[in-house]
């Protein structure tokens, strides 16, 4: 018996030694990339195809980790603290400061000028290195439409029925007569959905967290309390009138349903949203209604936070940050990679519908529901501007995006990211105050005449002035270096 055991043990040992990978200099580097998106049934297939590409081009093997929208923040934390295999991943702008201070990230400034030339060439040094706090480049921005022109999205059938003149809608105030007219005919219809009726049309540079902002789309350089600006008071007062008139869903402040889903459900007329080229096609697909849009306030501004919304960062876990940077450079410049990861394999997950092979669509018999691979998060992936265009969009959509970005007025604080580590305690309190009041005010659920003074008192009690002073000081120092 004992002999048998020892033989068995020996066998185990042998196999484990033999099974160990042989490490040599030519061993391809293994890249692990994490993104936030929905699960794709054919993910493994696509990863195999990407591996063929990366092995040939970079001598690297490749793997992805897909994080769900509801859990990505927690899972990123776990991977970063648990020292899991991770090289590059996308960082939401509000997490950036915490991640930097916790030592989760590699400073890309040490690598981008040597290994990331392609990124700088494509996006311009300004933008490519703009995701920086005190000289620490935490990530390169995903190339996307970053300007924020916003407006109202309305059901076309209702607009036609009540003979609404869409061109008459230019400001928040212009919406009141529209709502009044429809409400008279459809008393039970919810006319405006969403919890974010003030913020969707953004005319302040929020300087990342909204505690201390720059007015007029960042054309002023004085940091002020957003909730005392005339613009904010004007909007919440108007929205309160709408709520009391019954245009807004009573539960608007706490609803977790997306506005487009509410429209799809059939009893909602409109919602506010950022509007970009190709937006209508996307929304009509989601809501199942024909839609029309009108820009509100016509404020087309470009903020640091919108360019650096999701940035591609190198994790401190990375065994070789230089290789990770090389891979990022490849991801920003290789259209085959972008097409594979965003749209899947040609012929299987998508087909070309035009001669010049730029426009793609699902193969016959496949739609969005039955698709085995259709990640469709181009706005988060490194560089969608080099990838194929989905059918229904104009063929020159990327040029349109570029023009859209270029036409926007840049905030005076564009490129400035503030370091909040000295006001952490205040931010905890301020976040709680914001959670307490903002949704209720922004949906008209409470009367701003009584609640707005309470909000401001609570903000100052929570240390808003200290945050404003800190931001102003950092901004002034930053402006002085320009």
């Amino acid at each position, binding site marked *: 018996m004992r002999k048998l055991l020892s033989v068995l043990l020996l066998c185990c040992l042998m196999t484990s030694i033999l099974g160990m990978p042989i490490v040599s200099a030519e061993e391809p580097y293994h890249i692990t990339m994490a993104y936030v998106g929905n699960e794709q049934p054919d993910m493994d297939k696509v990863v195999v195809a990407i591996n063929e590409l990366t092995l040939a081009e970079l001598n690297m093997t490749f793997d992805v980790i897909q994080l769900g929208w509801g859990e990505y*923040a927690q899972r990123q*934390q776990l991977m*970063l*603290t648990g*020292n899991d295999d991770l090289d590059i991943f996308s960082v939401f702008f*509000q*997490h950036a*400061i*915490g*991640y930097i*201070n*916790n*030592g*989760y990230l590699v400073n890309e400034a040490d690598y981008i000028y040597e290994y990331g030339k392609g990124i700088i060439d494509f996006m311009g040094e300004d933008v490519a290195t703009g995701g920086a706090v005190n000289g620490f480049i935490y990530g390169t921005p995903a190339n996307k439409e970053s300007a924020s022109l916003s407006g109202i999205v309305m059901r076309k059938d209702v607009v036609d029925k009540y003979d609404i003149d869409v061109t008459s809608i230019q400001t928040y105030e212009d919406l009141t007569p529209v709502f009044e007219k429809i409400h008279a005919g459809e008393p039970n219809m919810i006319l405006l959905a969403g919890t974010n009726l003030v913020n969707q049309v953004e005319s302040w540079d929020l300087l990342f*967290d909204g505690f201390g902002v720059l007015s007029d789309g960042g054309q002023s350089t004085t940091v002020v309390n957003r909730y005392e600006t005339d613009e904010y008071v004007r909007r919440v007062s108007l929205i309160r009138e709408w709520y009391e008139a019954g245009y807004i*869903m*009573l*539960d608007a*402040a*706490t609803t*977790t349903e997306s506005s487009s889903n509410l429209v799809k459900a059939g009893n909602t007329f409109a919602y506010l949203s950022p509007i970009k080229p190709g937006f209508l096609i996307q929304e009509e697909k989601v809501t199942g209604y024909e839609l029309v849009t009108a820009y509100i306030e016509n404020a087309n501004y470009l903020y640091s936070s919108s360019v650096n919304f999701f940035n591609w960062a190198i994790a*401190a876990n990375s065994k070789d940050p230089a290789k990770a940077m090389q891979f990022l450079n490849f991801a920003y410049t290789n259209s085959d990679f972008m097409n594979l990861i965003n749209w899947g394999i040609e012929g299987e997950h998508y087909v070309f519908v035009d001669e010049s092979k730029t426009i793609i669509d699902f193969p016959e018999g496949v739609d969005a529901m039955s698709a085995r691979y259709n990640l469709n998060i181009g706005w988060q992936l490194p560089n969608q501007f080099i990838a194929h265009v989905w059918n229904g969009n104009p063929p020159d959509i990327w040029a349109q995006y570029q023009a859209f970005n270029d036409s926007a007025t840049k905030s005076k604080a564009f490129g400035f990211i503030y370091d909040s580590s000295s006001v*952490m*305690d*205040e*931010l*905890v*309190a301020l*976040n*709680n105050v914001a*959670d*307490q*009041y*903002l*949704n*209720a005010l922004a949906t008209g*659920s*409470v009367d701003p005449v009584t609640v707005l003074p309470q909000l401001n008192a609570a903000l100052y*009690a*929570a*240390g808003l002035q200290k945050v404003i002073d800190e931001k102003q000081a950092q901004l002034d120092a930053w402006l002085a270096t320009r």
Partner: protein
Amino acid sequence: MVQQNRMPRKKGFAERYGKWLPLYVMFIPGAIYLFINNYIPMAGLIIAFKRVNFSIGILNSPWAGLSNFKYLFATNDAWLITRNTLLYNLAFMVCNTIFGVLFAIFICDSAGKRVKKLYQSIILFPFLMSMVIVGYIVFALFSMQYGIVNKSILPALGKSPVYWYNEAQHWPAILTFVNTWKVVGYGCLIYISSINGIDTELYEAAALDGANKWQQIRHVTLPALVPPIITLTLLAVGRIFYSDFGLFYQATRNSGMLYSTTNVIDTYVYRGLVTQGNISMSSAAGFYQSIVGFTLVLSANLVVRKVSRENALF
């Protein structure tokens, strides 16, 4: 328990503990579980006193003193969240005990084994439900646009609809009701098993002495329930600084206008730190909650020991 300690002194180690050996063996898996899950992680408590930087590791990170705790006490909210946490937990303890005992007695007195089982399962069912689902049940009742209360019940009574999710004053009652409905089954089960353990001869003797149903409950059932009541209460006291995050976050749909009566320590920490991801500060909150809970359990047990020694936990 007390008698068992008075064993003859001059016995060898093996003789003294030998006969308990099977019990100790049975204890091992539990002990290992406790050690791995509850004791080893205690080393992580130092995170609360450090400014953690993962690129250099937890142990090498600089000490931060008590600065991670500051935010818990820095604002006016500190008083509010502490008050809410304590008062809700007190209310929950009282309701859970009273209703738990009440239902246990009712169920045990109901005729028929099958009916008993059925009642037990029904009363335990909400305990097994996820708070997210409970949140939606509450929303189905109290939704301001489509809720049953506003659309059917209040109009039938001739009253005007109430803005439930905008008005904080309704929520202490709603949350206490929801919590009792959800967790009462758990305590109830323990009380039922205690009642089942009572010698039926005691009831027969009481009946012979002319005790009616009420007197039997008062003098036989209730005294037998004192030990489990004390145990459950002591356990609840230890968690008095914690709160059921799901209840206070999901059931209120995180409605800001309700914070004055629904913000508790756990939700405050969550809302404050969810975007920052500062693990030192969140560990500090956990550390504070456990220390207070630990102290409270010790003092509560001390009081119980003073009053009735055999009912104390230790």
